[in-house]
């Protein structure tokens, strides 16, 4: 410790007295009695005097040293601190006090040097002990500093005057001052006036001996910190307070964390969802109120218990899967499942699981939240039931409306109804026409029915009568509770507890009843009832439809019988007609044959006796007989066309025309003819009948061109509106189109028979055949300018 220019006035005075004493050469008694070593030097550094204490310390005799040069006697002292200080004191004539280690003495000494005009007086004493104590103190101070500096808090010590005596490094960090800048300063100077004013009452309390703790916001050079301060007064035995140890902790961060934790805790605690944590072995480690609400266990009851308590036995696998996922660092999110409550009932929950990790990222547990979704499931279930019901109603609707067989309607209806509404029995009841009896027409029951289907029972006094009268549904939530019907006892014996009856109404008349019954009381909800009302309406309509259908069926059957009878009659008359034409063909020809035959025999055997006019008459008889034979043949052919079945096949029309022309070759002899056969397509037709058509048309063409010098006949074909139209064209006699409508009539002739012979059946036959094929035939002609007969084989209406 270097105390240059230390001059307290009282000490100065003391030393002056010494000097006076020395200078006056008075007795040295006084100097011998002081505890310090003393010596005096003249201006040449020679000893003038030294006291006994100095003799002791140095181990030298006063007599040996007086008059001797100090630096000669103590050469080791040259250039030491003491050497320099003493020279300074002498030269500058200033009092110097210093501490130095004397190697000669092997000890710390405190030296005071007072200059005199003629030399120096020097006091010194051994301070080794004090120095050691000081060092020890220093060491402990340093250690204290070291320890307190390492703490993340402010630590200080201030005295009664509120001056800092000690601060740790924290003050440097907080306020920017070094410890030695703070030491000795008033608190307010360091922490600021504002903070000081805030803290002052607490500081004062501490100075009054109280231990004080408080938190407040402390401004510092970069803002404010939330601090927690403890003031510990240092109290002496007599109760006086000498100082206060202050410990100031920055709790800004901690406070923030605390608040966040508190918020989280509040969230967890107030959550309606179960928030559970469990160890990897499935042991429950935390449990919030939400969990208690959902599962019924309190935290105390369940913590440290296995999670499997909550899991239904058939779902234990689920938890294993979850654990595997968690182990794979996956999250299970919103998994809908079922859990067990404390009371053993089940609860639908949606669970979300995520891993809990320690600071190293190791998974140490599982956090699990579970939401009670029973309500949601219930509404989902309700929705599903609703949808199922809707589709069942639709099915019922279809079943009812798509079927006209009443038996099937009932069967399907009863089957579908079971799927729609939980029931133990359902029946469709029918009333008789007079509505005084009823019977079950269809019944489905889980148990032995009390009333058998088909059995007629009296309506009188029964609930059926009530329904017939009131025409509204009748519901009994508890059979026999309010009303006692004739059937009540029967139902009770059967075990029926509740029932619902719905009238089946057609045109405001109850025609039957739909009943549903259950062995449970109040089994049918309003919902059920409204569905059943709808169904009952449908059923009524279906019954009506089916009834109408049955009637229609009955009519249809009658109609069919009529038709069959008529057909039989028609067939009989057809048979008669056939027999008639058979007779015609057989019996009418025989007399003609006789007429012709005997005329011929007459002409042959009696030619000589027959006069010439008689011979002509005989020839006329023969001609007419033969003519009539032809007529009969044509007529039979024509009538046969109606009965002959049509045998359609592909016909090559070109070769058919050629063949017919060959058959008709006799009619072409000795004639000038040009016959053109076009590129006629094949067709679908009855070959024999079509040949008849071609024959008739070509033979007509040949016949009516007989008078032409040059006959021209064409068998052609053209396509009109996608229709194959065949035609036979000639340049013959033709006819007046005014009579075209008569052309195809039986026995209709447009030419005199002496011009062109014929029966007038040929074109009627053609038309008959063409119509049977579904085709049309028509003609274009001009008198003396030829005729064209067109025909198609399809496209018209088949005239079978």
């Amino acid at each position, binding site marked *: 410790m270097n105390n240059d220019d230390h001059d307290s006035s009282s000490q100065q005075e003391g030393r002056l007295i010494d000097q006076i004493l020395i200078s006056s050469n008075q007795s040295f008694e006084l100097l011998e009695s002081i505890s310090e070593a003393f010596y005096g030097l003249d201006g040449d550094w020679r000893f003038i005097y030294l006291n006994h204490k100095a003799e002791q310390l140095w181990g030298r005799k006063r007599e040996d040293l007086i008059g001797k040069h100090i630096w000669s006697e103590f050469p080791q002292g040259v250039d030491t601190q003491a050497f320099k200080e003493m020279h300074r004191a002498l030269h500058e004539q200033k009092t110097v006090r210093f501490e130095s280690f004397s190697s000669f003495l092997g000890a710390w000494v405190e030296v005071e040097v007072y200059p005199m005009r003629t030399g120096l007086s020097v006091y010194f004493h051994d301070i080794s002990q004090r120095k050691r104590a000081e060092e020890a103190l220093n060491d402990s101070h340093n250690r204290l500093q070291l320890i307190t500096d390492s703490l993340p808090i402010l630590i200080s010590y201030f005295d009664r005057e509120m001056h800092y005596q000690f601060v740790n490094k924290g003050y440097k960090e907080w306020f920017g001052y070094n410890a030695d800048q703070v030491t000795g300063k008033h608190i307010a100077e360091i922490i600021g006036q504002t903070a000081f004013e805030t803290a002052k009452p607490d500081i004062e309390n501490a100075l009054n001996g109280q231990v004080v703790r408080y938190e407040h916001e402390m401004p510092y050079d970069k803002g404010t910190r939330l601090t927690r301060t403890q003031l510990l007064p240092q109290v002496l035995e007599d109760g006086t307070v000498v100082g206060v140890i202050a410990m100031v902790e920055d709790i800004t961060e901690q406070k923030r964390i605390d608040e966040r934790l508190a918020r989280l805790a509040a969230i967890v605690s107030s959550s309606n969802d179960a928030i559970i944590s469990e160890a990897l072995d499935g042991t429950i480690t935390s449990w919030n109120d939400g969990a208690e609400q959902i599962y019924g266990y309190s935290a105390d009851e369940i913590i440290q218990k296995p999670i499997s308590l909550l899991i239904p036995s058939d779902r234990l696998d689920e938890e294993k899967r979850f654990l595997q996922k968690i182990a794979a660092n996956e999250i299970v999110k919103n998994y809908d499942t079922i859990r067990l409550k404390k009371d053993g009932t089940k609860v639908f929950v949606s669970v979300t699981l995520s891993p809990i990790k320690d600071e190293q990222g190791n998974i140490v547990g599982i956090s699990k939240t579970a939401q009670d979704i029973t309500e949601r499931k219930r509404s989902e279930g309700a929705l599903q039931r609703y949808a199922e019901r809707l589709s069942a109603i639709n099915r019922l609707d279809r079943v009812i409306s798509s079927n006209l067989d009443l038996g099937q309607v009932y069967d399907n209806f009863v089957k579908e109804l079971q799927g729609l509404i939980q029931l133990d029995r359902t029946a469709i009841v029918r009333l008789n026409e007079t509505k005084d009896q009823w019977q079950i027409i269809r019944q489905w029951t889980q148990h032995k029915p009390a009333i058998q289907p088909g059995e007629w029972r009296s309506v009188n006094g029964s609930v059926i009568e009530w329904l017939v009268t009131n025409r509204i549904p009748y519901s009994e939530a508890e059979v026999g509770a309010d009303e006692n019907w004739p059937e009540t006892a029967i139902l009770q014996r059967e075990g029926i507890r509740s029932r619902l009856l719905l009238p089946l109404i057609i045109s405001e008349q109850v025609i039957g009843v739909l009943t549903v019954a259950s062995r449970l009381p109040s089994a049918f909800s309003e919902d059920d009832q409204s569905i059943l009302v709808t169904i009952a309406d449908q059923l009524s309509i279906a019954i009506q439809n089916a009834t109408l259908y049955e009637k229609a069926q009955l009519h249809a059957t009658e109609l069919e019988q009529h038709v069959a009878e008529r057909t039989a009659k028609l067939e009989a008359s057809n048979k008669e007609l056939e027999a008639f034409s058979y007779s015609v063909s*057989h019996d009418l*020809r*025989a007399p003609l*044959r*006789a007429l012709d*035959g005997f005329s011929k025999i007459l002409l042959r055997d009696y030619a000589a006796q027959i006069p010439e006019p008689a011979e002509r008459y005989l020839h006329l008889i023969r001609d007419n007989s033969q003519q*009539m*034979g032809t007529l009969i*043949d044509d007529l*039979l052919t024509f009538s046969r066309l109606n009965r002959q079945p049509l045998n359609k096949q592909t016909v090559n029309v070109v070769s058919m025309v050629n063949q017919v022309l060959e058959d008709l070759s006799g009619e072409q002899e000795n004639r000038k003819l040009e016959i053109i056969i076009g590129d006629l397509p094949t067709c679908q037709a009855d070959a024999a009948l079509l040949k008849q058509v071609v024959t008739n048309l070509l033979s007509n063409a040949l016949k009516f061109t007989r008078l032409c010098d040059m006959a021209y006949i064409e068998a052609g074909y053209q396509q009109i509106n996608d229709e194959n139209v065949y035609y036979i064209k000639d340049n013959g006699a033709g006819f007046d189109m005014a009579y075209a409508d008569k052309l195809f009539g039986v026995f209709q002739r447009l030419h005199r028979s002496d011009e062109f012979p014929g029966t007038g059946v040929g074109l009627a036959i053609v038309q008959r055949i063409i119509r049977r094929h579904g085709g049309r035939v028509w003609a274009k002609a001009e008198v003396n300018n030829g005729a064209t007969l067109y025909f198609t084989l399809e496209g018209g209406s088949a005239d079978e």
Partner: protein
Amino acid sequence: MSSNGVEILLVEDNPNDVELALDALREQKLANRIQVVRDGAEALDFIFCSGQYAERPNIPPKLILLDLKLPKVNGLEVLQRIRSDANMKIIPVVMMTSSQEESDLINSYNLGVNSYIVKPVDFEQFTEAVREIGFYWLLLNKLPKN
């Protein structure tokens, strides 16, 4: 009736047709050994030597000209009886009819008729048909002995 037996059995109920047929056959020099019967029953009696023909020597005719439409038993029935008899079934039968019905023709052939001719109104055609039948079945056709 000659001991050589009947050559042609004509089954015909219409006397006109009988006369015309005989005329035609006569023209063809076939008339001398003709037996005419007037209905189906008589035809069967003659063929099977029963009834009024029980005493007839049992020599079957060489040709039967059979009308289809006959009183009592019709031509098809007669034909059926002939064809179902072991001894008679080889006799040539020519169905002669004024019917042009297809069904009659088919039925006749189904029952094994040898020829089927429609009696034309024209006597010359009729004569020609008879001539051809006689010529073919009596002169050309050889039947197995017994």
